[in-house]
């Protein structure tokens, strides 16, 4: 029983990070019907920049401070936001009128560019990451279950950002504009919505979330390398589809399910099966409910 709870804690912590990345996929899809494959690599960029910033600012990554961690995170958010903006501005916008497949190929191109460009610039060796002043080993116990502070921070920050995102989308002017564009871009434009600006904003928002996810992921697993965005990116994408792509709440739910499924499968079946079974769950859900768990036909997208 204690073991089960322990697995659940780990699953929730991992799932929260998947959810945070999944939000970027789902928002962009909601607005543009484009799967932005470069998103996982923006996540990598966030972690990488975090590594550079923290090793420069705090001299020794072993003695980071909270203020330093916040500064590093803000800096990475700015860098990733800018990257997201540039990718959209120069990669996707010129192709907006052309067939969807063209944008998709461009997205895959950007993904490889960031991955292998990253290997060239940063070097392929993994580095140890330590921007947060807590060690993954720092923990406390509840009912025999050990919960590390990193897990708490992951879940706390993720939930906080999701609540904030919810407010932006449903209770702000720009959010209303995003929803309008996701419904029907030409009509939104006719109503006076600056579609280009809204789409840029969506990319920036998604990339900023990816940067935070990158820092959290790297703090929890302590390793950054140029190809680290590949698997988490793919799994976040799966989470987004699982929950119903284009649906913000669905992305959160999907991330959580995937994180839990992975942990439970590797603990009760075998770690070799974890990806196979996690993806089998995806296929099953899509067979039963093709639009994803929360993806109703009439659901509000974005």
């Amino acid at each position: 029983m204690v073991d089960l709870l322990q697995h659940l804690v780990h699953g929730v912590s991992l799932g929260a990070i998947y959810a945070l990345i999944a939000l970027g996929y789902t928002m962009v899809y909601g607005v543009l019907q484009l799967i932005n494959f470069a998103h996982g690599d923006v996540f990598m960029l966030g972690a990488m920049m975090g590594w550079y910033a923290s090793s420069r600012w705090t001299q020794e990554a072993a003695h980071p401070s909270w203020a330093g961690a916040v500064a590093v995170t803000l800096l990475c958010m700015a860098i990733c936001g800018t990257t997201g903006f540039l990718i959209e501005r120069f990669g996707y916008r010129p192709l907006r009128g052309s067939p969807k497949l063209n944008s998709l190929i461009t997205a895959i191109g950007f993904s490889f560019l960031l991955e292998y460009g990253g290997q060239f610039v940063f070097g392929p060796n993994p580095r140890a990451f330590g921007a947060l002043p807590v060690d993954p080993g720092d923990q406390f116990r509840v009912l025999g279950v050990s919960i590390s502070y990193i897990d708490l921070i992951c879940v706390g920050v993720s939930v906080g950002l999701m609540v904030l995102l919810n407010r932006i989308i449903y209770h702000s002017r720009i959010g209303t504009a995003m929803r309008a564009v996701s419904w029907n871009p030409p009509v939104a434009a006719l109503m006076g919505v600056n579609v280009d600006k809204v789409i840029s904003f969506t990319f920036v928002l998604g990339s900023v979330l990816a940067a935070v996810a990158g820092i959290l992921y790297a703090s929890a697993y302590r390793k950054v390398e140029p190809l680290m965005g590949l698997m988490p990116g793919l799994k976040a994408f799966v989470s987004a589809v699982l929950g119903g792509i284009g649906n913000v709440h669905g992305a959160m739910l999907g991330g959580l399910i995937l994180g839990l499924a992975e942990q439970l499968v590797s603990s009760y079946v075998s770690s070799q099966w974890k990806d196979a079974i996690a993806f089998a769950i995806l296929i099953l859900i899509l067979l039963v409910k093709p639009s994803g768990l929360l993806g109703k036909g009439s659901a509000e997208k974005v």
Partner: protein
Amino acid sequence: MRRMSAKFLICLLAVALGCKKEQEGGGNVSGTDTAVIKVGEVGSMTGTEATFGISSHNGIQLATDEVNAAGGIKGRKIQVLALDDQGKPEEAATAATRLISSEHVTALLGEVASTRSLFMAPKAQAAKTPMVSPSSTNEKVTAVGDYIFRACFIDPFQGYVMAKFATDTLKLNKAAILRDVRNDYSVGLAKVFNDNFTKMGGQIVENQSYSSGDVDFKAQLTNIKAAKPQALYVPGYYTDVGLVARQAREVGLTVPMLGGDGWDSEKLYEIGGAALEGSFFSNHYSVDDPSPRIQEFVAKFKKAYGGQVPDSLAAQAYDAAGMLYDAMKRAKDITGPSIREALAQTKDYKGVTGDITMDDKRNASKPAVVLRVGKGGKYEFSGRILPEGMKETNPAETPRAGPEPKKTEGNTAPNPAPGMTPTPTQAPAPGATTSAQNAANTGQRQGVPAGEHSKK
């Protein structure tokens, strides 16, 4: 298709080179007995693994200089021709071919990496040129043919070493295994550890796996913790091991971790940090080994290379070259088949990394060292483990002699001969002793440096 044509081109080139040299070198080969003995060396002098090649080259050069200074072999000096393979297997094969067919080398030294040795070996075998790899530990390398030898132990031996160390020195009887299923090396070590630990009376309480590149091991570690082992054997590579160590402490698993030479990298501690302290791994050699042979070698090496400390690759290359020259001295003449014969009969060659004896599969049977990860990531020498049935510096004993190794069972080194300090084997270094006792004493409440991470 492109690949095929490239290979074809290389073949053509090799043939062309070979033919050319056949003509001009004709007189040289049949030359007098005073001509130099040419020995070819293939290594990665450039590329991502440049340190491997350079270290090995330094070791080989030192051994060669010593032999030449002492008058050479049968009155002839040795000349080492080193070729760079840039860390590429195909280049290693080409370099071997070039050395054999155009330089007419008598023997080959190299490569460090098993993959590249596997590319070189068929060339050496076909040309009946003895080849000695200093540090390729994959079993398949010497299986290529009877002209291929190595100066290091093979992968599975390390599994035995750790089982022995855990049983005899740490006095443990319950261990768990976490192996990398995508890595033959890890699977091999884990299997041998499992078999030997069980045979020595221990019990494997949990057997878990991961795939190299994974970053989340908490599920496996939580299961391992539930089985209450006294130690965790993780024979993986350093990046994964560093992460495993951190997460082990995170899920509250505080028992010492054990591993193999795949841990040997400065990255290990960078990633794993303090979570690794108190863990042990097997390796080929340690500069801190108090044995006079090693200290003498370290001093010589430092003198020759401006204070540089020899790493284990340099020590093994030094031994590989030394072993080859020793065989050349014993061989009836300096030809491939005679040297091969002499190499195969190598027995108790006094290398710096231990007494080396060739077994019937042309693998070196020799001791391994166990290192402890100490404070700040410093590796502390904690003991030496001999192959089953071998006694330390006792020439009468043949290693892997028979099914019944004499009384050596249950004792790391029964009779250290004069000449050898008993300290390394009988009584591990101070740091190691305490940790070993710790591990043994606190086995019940499963924790070595407990209290550091849990319960805040």
